[in-house]
């Protein structure tokens, strides 16, 4: 704390303020003032299905330019078919056996992937909170499946919050990242996304993901799969609206 | 036509090395019936000192300039960087001197670059010139970036009879002059002007023009050294041509 005091005094001196008198943030209410998001939140909530479908289209289109492989499905079983196909058709990059790591999320559980692999050597792991071996299992996995909280159409971003049972590494260490996103969770732009984030009372770490890992450091040649996943598969779950 | 008398602010390089540019301006004004005078005693706007950091010495030049030009109606100069010096930097130089500061602001407000004055102030797009040749135009940095003058010269050129304007690649990239920079870092400066010249040559235009003699001097100097066959003219010279003569 001693360091902090002298450090901040030096700043106050530089700013022409009294060095030893701490300035309080309450004296500068505008400094942390943030625009009211009520309107934005209302807009997000009141979107019609047509409008949401429009956002899906934009998200997919923008994702395409970022090399995101995207799929629209109408039901969880349909999503499961896709995932199964990806698991079957992809060869592990760092291991010889097929391990898949999945976030502890109701939509992912509802895929019931365990039912699909009774004759193949595919091991499925879920990142349950108290499992101490999660890191090892994640390192062993070639596919990671998450269900991001928010999708952003304009920047083709999925926002992954760190929460109990939803660690950071699931979308990072495997060669393939599959993000399962409900149409309802897609917003138009970052302004809307940040408004939703501000709603959260507690934010642990989180990450914006806009495409597969990439680098252009060697002669500006674009290569996917630098350190993170080399493929990002976005599965948008757009269930048909029930007649009201 | 404006009733105002234009006071010619002839940049030192034009005065000493390129007087034909000044004469060309006069020719254009004559043709347009614009009255002008040439306040005696003018020297240099102070830019070389200012850009080298010698702001106090630049301020002396600025003071001299203000004394000379204070009583004029309109000041027109065939060089964008000098106009910028007067308009943007004179007030800065006298930030601590209220009286001089206001004088500087007043001078700046009535100082115009040649093409800007013609197009924006006089509303002239066609000066009645005839110049049957292919021409490419270099955007001088201070002119285009700082004063926002890019369309005016093009408008005027496009209305010159017989003239075909061919845009070069990266016309708004610096030619590498930079005042004392060109003398202090000649290798870098020459590399920059070489690229400019390559872009000029690529247009196959037989003339390159611009609104700032400093850049043109740099380009000319390198073109001559390389022995390239491109003529370098200040835009006033093109606008002054009316007999269809190729210069």
């Amino acid at each position: 704390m001693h360091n902090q005091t002298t450090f901040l005094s030096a700043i106050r001196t530089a700013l022409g303020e009294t060095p030893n008198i701490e300035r309080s943030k309450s004296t500068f209410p505008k400094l942390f003032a943030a625009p009211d998001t009520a309107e934005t939140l209302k807009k997000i909530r009141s979107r019609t299905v047509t409008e949401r479908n429009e956002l899906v289209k934009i998200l997919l289109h923008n994702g395409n330019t970022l090399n995101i492989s995207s799929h629209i499905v109408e039901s969880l079983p349909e999503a499961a078919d896709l995932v199964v196909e990806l698991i079957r058709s992809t060869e592990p990059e760092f291991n010889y056996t097929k391990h898949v790591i999945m976030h502890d999320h109701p939509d992912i559980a509802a895929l019931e992937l365990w039912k699909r692999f009774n004759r193949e050597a595919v091991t499925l792991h879920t990142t349950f909170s108290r499992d101490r071996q999660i890191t090892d299992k994640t390192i062993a996995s070639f596919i990671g499946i998450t269900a991001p909280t928010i999708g952003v159409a304009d920047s083709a971003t999925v926002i992954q919050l760190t929460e109990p049972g939803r660690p950071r590494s699931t979308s990072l260490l495997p060669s393939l990242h599959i993000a399962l996103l409900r149409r309802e969770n897609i917003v138009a732009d970052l302004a809307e996304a940040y408004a939703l984030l501000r709603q959260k009372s507690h934010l642990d770490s989180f990450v914006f993901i806009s495409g597969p890992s990439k680098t252009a450091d060697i002669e500006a040649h674009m290569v996917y799969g630098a350190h993170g996943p080399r493929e990002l598969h976005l599965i948008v779950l757009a269930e048909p609206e029930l007649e009201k | 036509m404006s009733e105002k008398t234009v006071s010619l602010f002839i940049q030192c390089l034009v005065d000493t090395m390129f007087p034909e540019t000044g004469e060309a301006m006069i020719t254009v004004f004559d043709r347009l019936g614009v009255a002008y005078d040439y306040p005696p005693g003018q020297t240099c706007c102070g830019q070389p000192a200012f850009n080298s950091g010698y702001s106090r010495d630049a301020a002396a030049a600025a003071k001299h300039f203000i004394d000379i030009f204070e009583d004029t109606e309109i000041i027109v100069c065939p060089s964008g960087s000098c106009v910028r010096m007067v308009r943007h930097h004179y007030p800065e130089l006298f930030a601590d001197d209220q009286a001089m500061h206001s004088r500087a602001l007043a001078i700046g407000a009535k100082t115009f670059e040649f093409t800007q004055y013609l197009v924006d102030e006089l509303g002239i797009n066609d000066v009645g010139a005839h110049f049957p040749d292919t021409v490419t135009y270099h955007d001088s940095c201070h002119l285009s970036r700082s004063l926002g003058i890019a369309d005016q010269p093009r408008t005027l050129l496009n209305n010159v009879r017989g003239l075909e304007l061919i845009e070069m690649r990266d016309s708004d990239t610096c030619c590498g002059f930079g005042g004392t920079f060109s003398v202090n870092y000649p290798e870098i400066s020459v590399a920059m002007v070489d690229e400019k010249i390559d872009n000029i040559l690529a247009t196959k235009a037989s003339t390159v023009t611009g609104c700032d003699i400093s850049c043109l001097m740099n380009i000319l100097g390198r073109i001559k050294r390389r022995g390239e066959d491109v003529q370098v003219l200040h835009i006033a010279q093109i606008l002054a041509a009316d007999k269809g003569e190729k210069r």
Partner: protein
Amino acid sequence: MSAKPQSQYCRDAQKGMGSPRLQASLHSLQNRFGKGAMTLWAEMDDQDMRRRVKQSRMKNLDHLDILLAELAKKVRARGGHVHFAENAQDAIDYTLEVARKNEVKRVVKGKSMLSMEIAIDSALQEAGMEVVETDLGEYIIQLADDKPSHIIAPCIHMDRSRIGELFTEKLGINYTDDPPSLTAAARKALREKLLSADMGLTGCNLACAATGHISLVSNEGNIRMATTMPPVHVALMGMERIVATLDEHRETVQLLTRGAALQKLSTYVSFVGGPSTSDDPDGPKEFHLVIIDNGRSKILADPEFREVLACIRCGACLNICPVYGRIGGHAYNSPYCGPIGAVITPLLDGINKHADLCKGETLCGACKDICPVQIDLPRMLAGLRQKLAYGSDRWNTKQHNPLEAYAFTLWRQVVSWSPLYRTGLKIARLCQRPFVGKNSMIKRMAGLASGWTDGRDLPPIAKKTFTEIWQKKHATAEVKLPMATKEDNNA
């Protein structure tokens, strides 16, 4: 053929200009990203955004003490440690102490220019640790024992075959110059390092005071790795890299990634700050934020230069600067190159020491035009030159070139009194005669002026100056009459 002694800057600049690889890379880089950014700014819907972000950057600088105190409070509340380091040594000592306590043997780094500014790598290595850069470009630079030459694209001066040879030598792979294969080799090698490291060391692009997060952008994912897998994460933060609120973050980060690589967002924007919790099984067990001054408060104190602290280090100014575009990054001899480097390096590390950086630009203004936060770098370059011209106590700067200063004092006399000016011209006109060559141009001059004539001809002083012509024709005329004839004045 100049006989002038050459500075290191000039020698390195010439080396850069002589490298075909570098020239090709710089050319395509500027073509794509420089022009791209200008187009992006022109076409952006929200034309007010850049001004707004600049304003918030400046506002945050004015309240920096409050923001940093708030940030520290929030990070600590999340269980992180915060250390305020007045200078490089302080930051190094603290990091070493953290490393020692945690028995760190291997450190993985996310790209951080600040880490280069404070030269922490060598300190860690001397303490017996292995330090591994994980950004592919930086990793290549590290393997080659070279220096980065661009803020965002560190190894643009190296070609693929050089990198191929390097990987064969250092990683033991069969030679290839295929970028995907080379990337795959590095991916594998670095994954091992990243998964086994004891400490992740990163910079901080933007900290958010209101939430206590620091945010980091990357395309490769190495920064996510370095902040997630090792048990300790140390983030080095320049004290000015802070926003007050998430809303400010949203706009600022978008300008950063657009300026840097024309991206609406980089592939990853990670918000971290604080160790993992018991519910959150991965992530570091310890998080340390080191907030570094190292000369910044001195810049903050000077209204003339405070604006440079608004920089978000996107590197866009490199992508348009015609000087950087010729000479590349090495000549700047600093972790910060290009226009931003030319301003910040002298301010942080000595104006006299880096006089060439202050003087080696044309002040064309392109950097100001492209800068997402519209920083007036040319104004500050002129300001730095002023310190060199007259010396400055505040900046502990000596007059750089007394001879030049004397010359400008003379110049001042001459331009302030036109008879002297006119006489001087006449004398010069007489003196130049022997030098005027066949094409009516001066081919060679002596002394300083040789800088011009080494590569260019110079037009001589005209036989009659404009003033003389005017006097002859108009001396008697009271009223300004249109001029009738025109005399051929060419020499």
